């Protein structure tokens, strides 16, 4: 249970970072921390204590104690999405830097929510 709670704490650290950091790159890093906490969570949810990797090593006895492979597949899919998220965010950050000459969000405030 401690591990799950630590994942949640990591998620909260990410949210704290997104809300308080003033630098575009640090905001992106905080979002990535949130993503990784969920990947850890997914891997933990699929873990069976004492389980092995879900590979059929011996066709005669396929039913050994294995961990759940589905969350691992989900982590892989989400990693690809996270890659797209990060590259897109960083592209925008670079473009914004070229326009404003700064990463500080206090200076990038043309719009009022």
């Amino acid at each position, binding site marked *: 249970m401690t591990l799950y709670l630590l994942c949640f704490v990591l998620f909260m650290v990410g949210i704290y970072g997104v809300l308080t950091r003033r630098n575009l790159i640090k*905001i992106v890093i905080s979002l990535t921390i949130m993503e990784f906490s969920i990947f850890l969570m997914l891997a933990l*949810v699929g873990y069976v204590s004492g389980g092995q990797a879900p590979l059929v090593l011996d066709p005669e006895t396929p039913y050994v104690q294995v961990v759940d492979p589905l969350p691992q597949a*989900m982590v892989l899919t989400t990693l690809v999405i996270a890659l797209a998220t990060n590259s897109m*965010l960083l592209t925008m*950050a670079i473009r914004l830097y070229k*326009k*404003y000459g700064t990463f500080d969000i206090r200076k990038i405030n043309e719009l009022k929510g």
Partner: protein
Amino acid sequence: MNMESWVITLFFVLPFFCAFVNPLADRIFPGVQRVLTTVMTFALLILTIFVCFYHQQTIVYAVGGWKPVGSVPIGIHLVLDGLSGFMLLMINLIGFFSAFYAIDYMKEYTGGKYFYVLICLMIAGMNGVVLSGDLFNMYVFMELAAKSSYALVAFGLRKDELEASFKYQVLGGMASLLILFGITMLYWKTSTLNMADISNLLQNSDNDAFILFVQLILITGFGVKSALIPFHGWLPDAHSSAPSPVSAILSGVLIKASGIYILMRLFINVFHPDEYIALVIATLGGVSMFVGALLAVGALDVKRLLAYSSISQVGYVVMGLGLGMTVIAKGEDASAAALTFTGALFHMFNHSVFKGLLFLNAGSVEYATGARNMKQMGGLAKYMPVTFASTFVASMSIVGIPPFNGFFSKLLIIVAAINGEYYFRAALGIIVGVITLVTFVKFQVYTFYGKPAFVSDFGESPTFMKISMISLVVLCFVLSILIIPEVRSLVIDPALDTLLETNGYSTKMPGS
């Protein structure tokens, strides 16, 4: 009628195909991607009408042919039922008119071919979201639609567009992660991702603290996606910065497909309708309605005004949804729930039509004058008669003046609230209607009446933009006949039945 179930995969296979063929085709025949995308969206519209009206049963397609083992569905299922069909109709209708409008509108932008790639991907993502019967698959399609919308918001690459897109990405990214967190928790509890299977498993257990926590996390996530009031910060910036045809899709269907549709599907078909959760949803809806309308009155930027008014109109839909859930959770008369859900679904359809039209109008004003601030406009009625007339019709629809569609859907929601003795919510609906009236009178007066602020060297919009706007005006009239029960039974009732059967959704799936 017998139909092969693979037909429903065409709803995202066609746009995917179109998205990746577009840049290639454009190298050989410059300009062909406009025709290709328009024809593709038209084909999708025809396909939707064909699938929804001639084939009334639920279609289930198992991706990759993975058959259920015993009563456990493995693999991904695509499900087309009444609610999905209704959403598909909405998405592809607005998608087609926006693509048609963009033929002329996008000429002033460079990089038009990338625009068409992104718009195809966005349509594919939204169609995938509404067809998916699997939570994680739904998440992936939702991300696809969201990613392409982030890029489209920043399409002009000006300062404010980049800033809006960054803000949208950070908030949208946090929402997606909260949703993924909710999905993880649900998988932990039930060990399955199939929505019908989850619904089955949750039927046998009570709504304990774990499920309530998951529900609140998911409401937050989808609240950001559908821009309900405490979570709305990104919407006015993002929707006003995008090119106008994209704003029409974003405001018309994206917030509904990736926000409200999933709220409806999850909180009515998958979870038990819970009284407190219903209260949370109805309150969020009510607050969005009221505050969104007040923010819209104060706006001076045309597209920002329309974006704020989207928040308010989406609030109506969410409040109707919350009311219906309350009725179901209390175990009261199903006909009362039917009335609110009809109102909510009807208003959702209407909103996508008239808000799409209004954004196209705003785009056409911007195309002609190059301005978005209403104080710099005035007297446009003389120069742009078609835009003026269609804006007038759309404004009257959104305000709720009787012969137009918006009146009937608002009426249904308010009558349902009075029938259920929720007088405060009914009064809120009427007050917000009045505020909306003020907003749109202001919009009309500043933009189209009064002394011309320009020495005119501009005229009416090009042909394709005009045709697109006029067709949507016709739809604003035609949709009013959905109030007649016989017509309603064709379009809205299949979706309504899906909502009313609540957990009965799970019985339609194979292997359960």
